[in-house]
């Protein structure tokens, strides 16, 4: 079984895996990073979203051999110590979660969107987030959290 060097949240890890093994299962089973979720395994729900070189990728369909050596960020790598990333903070402040199983993926997708477009238009948000499913239907709150994080909305919610 080949060995790969993975660079996750600023740390390197050596993992033994078949080349086609999905990054999601390496993260969850070998590295203990369970914040990244399995929701469908076909890149349709977004629960497994991580950042690879700063861009949102569905880790369930990312083969280990193709992401080795690249900069990988998971939900666990966003906060600086106890200080939350602004997107995490915005999700908390907007109450943008119910069961929250989609939340990691939603946050990672938002970070990626704001990396590319710090002040996205409404349609940009809709299009870039449409691959992330929230079965609890928290979409309007998540939209509000994204707007808050992008600094478009500064006032406190009543």
């Amino acid at each position, binding site marked *: 079984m080949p060995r790969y060097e993975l660079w996750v949240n600023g740390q390197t890890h050596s993992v033994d895996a078949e080349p086609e093994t999905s990054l999601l299962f390496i993260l969850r089973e070998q590295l203990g990073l*369970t914040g990244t979720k399995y*929701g469908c395994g076909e890149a349709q729900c977004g629960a497994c979203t991580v950042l690879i070189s700063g861009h949102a990728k569905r880790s369930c369909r990312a083969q280990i051999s193709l992401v080795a050596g690249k900069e990988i960020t998971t939900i666990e790598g966003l906060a600086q110590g106890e200080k939350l990333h602004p997107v995490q903070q915005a*999700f908390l402040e907007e109450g943008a979660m*119910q069961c*929250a*199983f989609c939340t990691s993926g939603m946050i990672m997708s938002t970070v990626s969107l704001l990396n590319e477009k710090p002040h996205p238009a409404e349609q940009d948000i809709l299009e870039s987030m449409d691959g992330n499913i929230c*079965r*609890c239907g928290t979409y309007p709150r998540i*939209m509000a959290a994204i707007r808050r994080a992008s600094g478009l909305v500064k006032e406190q919610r009543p």
Partner: protein
Amino acid sequence: MTQRTLLKQTVEPERYELLKEPPVLFESDRRGFFRFLGTGLVVICSAKTVAWQESGAGRRRGGQELPQEIDAWLHIGEKGEITAFTGKVEVGQNIRTSLTQAIAEELRVPVESIELVMGDTKLVPYDIGTFGSLTTPVMNLQLRRVSGAARDVLIAMAAKQWSVDAARLTATDGKVEDTQGKRSAMYSELVKGQQITQVLPAEDPLIPPSKWTVAGKTIPKVDGRDFVTGRHQYPSDITRPGMLYGKIVRPGAFNATLISADTKAAEAMPGVTIVRDGNFLGVAAASSAEAEKAAAAIHADWKAEPQTTSKELFEYLKNHQEKPEEGDNYRFGSGDVVPAFAAATHKVSATYNINYIAHAPLEPRAAVAEWTGDQLTVWTGTQRPFGVRSELGSAFKMPEDKVRVLMPDTGSGYGGKHAGDAALEAARLARAAKKPVKVVWTREEEFTWAYFRPAGVIEITSAVNADGSVTAWEFHNYNSGTAGFRTYYDVPNQKIEFHAVNSPLRQGSYRGLAATANHFAREVHMDEMAGAVKMDPLEFRLKNLKEDRLRAVFEQGGKQFGWSKPRAANHGSGVGGGFEKRGYVATFVEVALKPGTGEIKIQRVLTAFDCGAVVNPDGLRNQIIGANIMGLGGALFEAIEFSNGRILNNVFSKYRVPRFQDVPAMEALLIDRKDKEPVGAGEAPIVGIAPAIANAIYAVTGERLRTLPMGPQLAAKGFLVC
């Protein structure tokens, strides 16, 4: 009375997963249950003081009542730590927060000082399950009573210590205060070195909702930080030392029997455990990749009978009725519909069809099972930890007190996680492997081997006078269920029947149960009747409605929505509402038709909702809007397609659920009734959206839609909802 008999009398027949005959019934023995909580104050309840949902069902087995048990509900330790215990579970409805608020309110302590232990069968009092929107009316009340009792004991203790009248003392912010004597004592000081047990008094004064200071306000999710950092461990995230990963070899069709299995290739793989037990065939290995590989290497032959297809679903349901049972609650009648129909000015008849849909919780069913000697511990995502404990006890022929089920806050359920399938599978594999085993269903398994919301056929015939008063109502529901099948409109002659059907698919509870189907049919039919007498649909409803609280949601919702204001060209409005799980709901929808294209856009949705006194306005809005968005899927797109025992659309790429771009402008209008006890809100708000959309689309297109989902019928007529 057996648990099953009790259930049959108290729950709707469409909760098929709860009513099926359990394989074995054990005499439960919970002696030795009383746990050591440390010194301090414990509030306990004898079974008799607890509402039925929390007691009778679980304490009776095999026709015999067990000795009355003592359950601890609240503990205040000498360091001031407060622990409360409930068998209710968190699946995203945010009850960990709202129940914590209720405790904080009565106990007069900061929210942060409370730890709520939920759904751990070893630690919490028996609970039948988290369903039926019962958490707020039952558990919220129970925890407020328990907390109020603890507060009164603490005040009495301080009064004794200071030799003053308890009436002049107040409890606030975790301490008892004597404003006259200018002294105070922290709860922790009062209980230090003590072992006090207080039985919950039968009657105790509660703080009325109009005087709430913590409850009734928006507070953020109590452990929200754990969710935005990925730290929270869902059932599928649990790991145990030495744990293996399980994979089940599934049959190619429902109701198949395992004939043979060639496991040689899998057996040759290192570290693989294979279990074949009856129809169960599964493997466990060191990683999920290895387990998958081993499962794929097994060649199994299954035998299955030919089965029906979704294309013939509605004819099938009409033709496969079961014999009615004696004494069931499947029918209701008043007056006599026959002469009323004969004398009718207008008679309206229509048939409505409802497809099977899937819960599709984002976290699939998952469990981790660990055997320690003859003790079994299972972490699993279930709305019925005690129910799953019974299933495990039965399956492994062991007393239930040797089984512990823990339910970490789970990635949603919507009524779909009542059964313990994944728990049984993980436990069976773990017993063979002699190591802990985790089983997480794939999305395909989740779409195939869980149970579905019942499909149904609903036939309605009604009679209405020229002045718009409904005189007769005949309603037949095939298979969907009885939830919400009674009409709340004031009709003198009624005949309402539920017809049980031998369902072609495994079916069971779903958020709102059959109330969604029954409200869809009834509320679309109300519009059809209003059309027959050329009345405004809202005015027609109010003319036939006496119930004040239901009138209020229709009237106030209509006002807020601007129902009576003229709509723009190519815009139409629809309304649908009703009463379910003690909540009153009216949903208003505006749609727009893009001229010349057939494109229909749902512009905005407003739901007015009355669930008594509001406990957490923000959480409530989330539930109302979330239920409406979930309801959009069943209204427009979702339908399980099946053929010959297989599900044809068992992935998200083939089963469309609502996404960001599907969501219209959403508004929730909270009718906060401080004079009424709070009731649940997880289910009722889902029932209005489908009929409101159907009625709005009719208003703008003239097409009457009578099937859920509506998308395919619309497409056949050249319309597209986008």
